[in-house]
């Protein structure tokens, strides 16, 4: 058993850290702050991803032939640690980088790879993912958006998607639609790559409680996709969904949570109440220590899991544990951070910025839900890890079918 990194792995870390010190956005290392203005922020994030791509740091886990580094899971862990260390700006095309490109690499045609991968990497084309529907929620297989052949190798798409992150800025959508409704709900689905710049597609932002509008409803009214934009086989879209969802489980946010915790620790060392630093209060110390222990546990569990995956190659349902633990940790930590502000907890902080605790705490409710809710993660653990009897009613979400 060895929890330490090899020299080779440490040199990966040094290379990345040096590159970040050289290439992080101006002033970021001293004071990480995203532009307030929506359009400016999108431009800033596009620039940042292009910078990453130019340096070879946008898709580290991609094969080298497509512009990645073929980074191992452990190197990906180091990558997350280092990005968290500087509170790096998010990759605007993260859905493309982490989910869609790996899926295309696995099941896409060579033409699709050539056409799409470079522009995913550089964020020249931003992607969104069209799964959820108003009546389908976490039960993705119940979706009703339809795609029908319209001759000349074209498909006509009709329906509505919801909770679609980045749809308002996306150039392409990875869409799953029903192409045959004669079978069971898992049959007759097809995955399409759909260009967003069509009159037949409109998006409507969803106003979220932290006053953000990054989720959308997307309406398809006779939108067009061509045959060469079908991923995998027609009517076999569920396999594609499963391929993509396997990539969802490989991720973890524990390192950015740890960084938040360390920032909070620093806050408690310097911030005083009645002249005494917060950190000297027993109740604050006890809570911080409990977070510390939970974070250490989650990190150690993640390393155990990564070590296992390095051998088996596939992320197991244990990924549900990481999601459950991380989402609850993030929420509890941010909620506690807001409470520590004293009476000022009655105020927004820093104008609803991505890095303030108040926005983060409210956003954490959304993160819970986006991750499939703890209820679903607990179903997955109960049924797929532990083998408890399945409730035919409570499908454990598309992630785990």
């Amino acid at each position, binding site marked *: 058993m060895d929890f330490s990194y090899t020299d080779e792995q440490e040199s990966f870390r040094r290379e990345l850290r040096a590159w970040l010190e050289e290439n992080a956005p101006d002033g970021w290392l001293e004071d990480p702050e995203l532009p307030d203005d929506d359009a400016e922020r999108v431009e800033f994030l596009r620039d940042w991803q292009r910078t990453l791509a130019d340096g070879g740091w946008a898709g580290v886990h991609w094969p080298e032939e497509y512009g990645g580094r073929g980074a191992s899971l452990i190197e990906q862990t180091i990558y997350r640690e280092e990005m968290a260390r500087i509170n790096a700006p998010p990759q605007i095309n993260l859905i493309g980088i982490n989910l869609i490109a790996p899926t295309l690499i696995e099941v896409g045609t060579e033409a699709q790879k050539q056409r799409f991968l470079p522009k995913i990497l550089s964020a020249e084309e931003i992607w969104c993912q069209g799964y*959820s529907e108003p009546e389908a*929620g*976490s*039960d993705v297989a*119940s979706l009703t958006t339809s795609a029908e052949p319209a001759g000349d190798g074209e498909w006509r798409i009709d329906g509505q998607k*919801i*909770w679609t992150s980045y749809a308002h800025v996306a150039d392409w959508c990875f869409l799953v639609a029903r192409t045959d409704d004669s079978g069971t709900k898992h049959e007759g689905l097809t995955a399409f790559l759909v260009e967003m710049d069509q009159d037949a597609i409109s998006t409507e932002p*969803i*106003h*979220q*409680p932290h*006053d953000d509008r990054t989720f959308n409803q997307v309406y398809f009214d006779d939108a067009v996709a061509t045959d060469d934009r079908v991923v995998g086989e027609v009517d076999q879209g569920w396999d594609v969904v499963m391929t993509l969802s396997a990539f969802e489980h490989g991720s973890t946010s524990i390192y950015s949570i740890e960084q938040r915790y360390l920032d909070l620790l620093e806050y408690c060392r310097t*911030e005083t*109440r*009645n002249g005494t630093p917060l950190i000297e209060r027993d*109740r604050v110390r006890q809570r911080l220590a409990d977070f510390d222990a939970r974070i250490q546990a989650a990190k150690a569990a993640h390393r155990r899991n990564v070590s296992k995956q390095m051998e088996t190659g596939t992320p197991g349902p244990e990924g549900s544990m990481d999601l459950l633990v991380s989402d609850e940790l993030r929420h509890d930590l941010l909620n506690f951070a*807001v*409470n520590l*502000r*004293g*009476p*000022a*907890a*009655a*105020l*927004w902080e820093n*104008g609803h910025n991505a890095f303030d605790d*108040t926005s983060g*705490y*409210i956003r954490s*409710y*959304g993160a*819970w*839900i*986006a991750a499939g*809710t*703890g*209820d679903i993660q*607990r179903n997955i653990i109960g049924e797929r890890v532990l083998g408890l009897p399945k409730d035919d*009613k*409570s*499908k454990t979400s598309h992630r785990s079918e």
Partner: protein
Amino acid sequence: MDARLTDEHERVQETAREFIESEGGIDLARRQIDGENVVDDLWNELADLDYTAITVPLEYDGFGEGMVYLAALLEVAGRYALPGPLPETAAVAVPLIRDLGTEDQRSRFLPSVADGDLRMSVAVYDDETEPLPGGIRMGAERRGDEGTTEFRLEGTKTLVPYAAETDVVIVAARTREGQGYDGVSLFAVETDHDAVEATRMDSLDWARPMYELSIDGLTVGEDALLGPLHGGGSALVTAMDRFSVAGTAMLVGAADRAVELSVEYGTEREQYGQPIGRFQAVKHRTADMWVDMQSARSLVYYAAWALDEDEPDAARAAAATKAFAADRLHRVFGDDIWNHGGMGFTWDHDAHIYLKQAKSWRNFLGSPEANRDRLIDARLAAERNR
């Protein structure tokens, strides 16, 4: 013993509910959130319904009712996150003036409040990070000789609810150096002075605006001093108890609504071919929400009654109410979001309005931790005297 709301309480709840529904219900709060000022019009209507007169003594044209009656009303107000300084005016300012005011002060303020012509708020903090009483710093310099006592107020109060929508703010200031609340005096300050300026803060709960209230060398006469010089602290503590109970009553009404929303959604929304409320995870979470709401409601009623009756455990009950409810009701609203899945995490769903209100209230005028400290001190004192 009959620890239920009376028929009259229930009637006022029903009337209030019908009235607020007829005005748009929670859309009033949503309009306020969107930047409109709905308080002025709304207040006139509240006054027409005599709600502004509830706690004003009979001899000043009021109804002479207490916290129980008010709590029953505020539950309904909270259900709709109703904007306006009703708790500040009716639960905090009126009882302070009633209990501490001179005959002159009472006559000056109370009938106008009852009529709806005067709205009031309270300003305690000078520092938005320091808890009380350390957060009270503003000095009020005494001037003049024996005959013509005056006070010069200078400084900026923070976290003043509805300062720009109220006529008079009760300001806590230090007239003497002292430990804790010792040396704190209360002043009734009119907001339309040139020397007084209210600046909107970015309150988490946009339905309940908070202000910085800067007082730039305002000289007030002795008739602005409310209660004993240097000795306003204990009355302020009781006032905050009333405020805590009133605020929690609003949150209880909101929590009652959140339970309803979860039950409705759990009954109607289907996933995997079943109403989601049939899943035990949703059902049990909703049951726990209801239990927490009912527990908080029970504490509110008891504390309100104990405050009205001047029971020896009134302060302990108020501390218990805030300590118990703050985080638990906050979780009720979070669980309502959770029960609604993606639909819950939208601006259109009401839970976030309540959630932000709960979070705003949590530390305001005393965190749960501080209230637990007070509670246990009060309990120990009571046990020593048994």
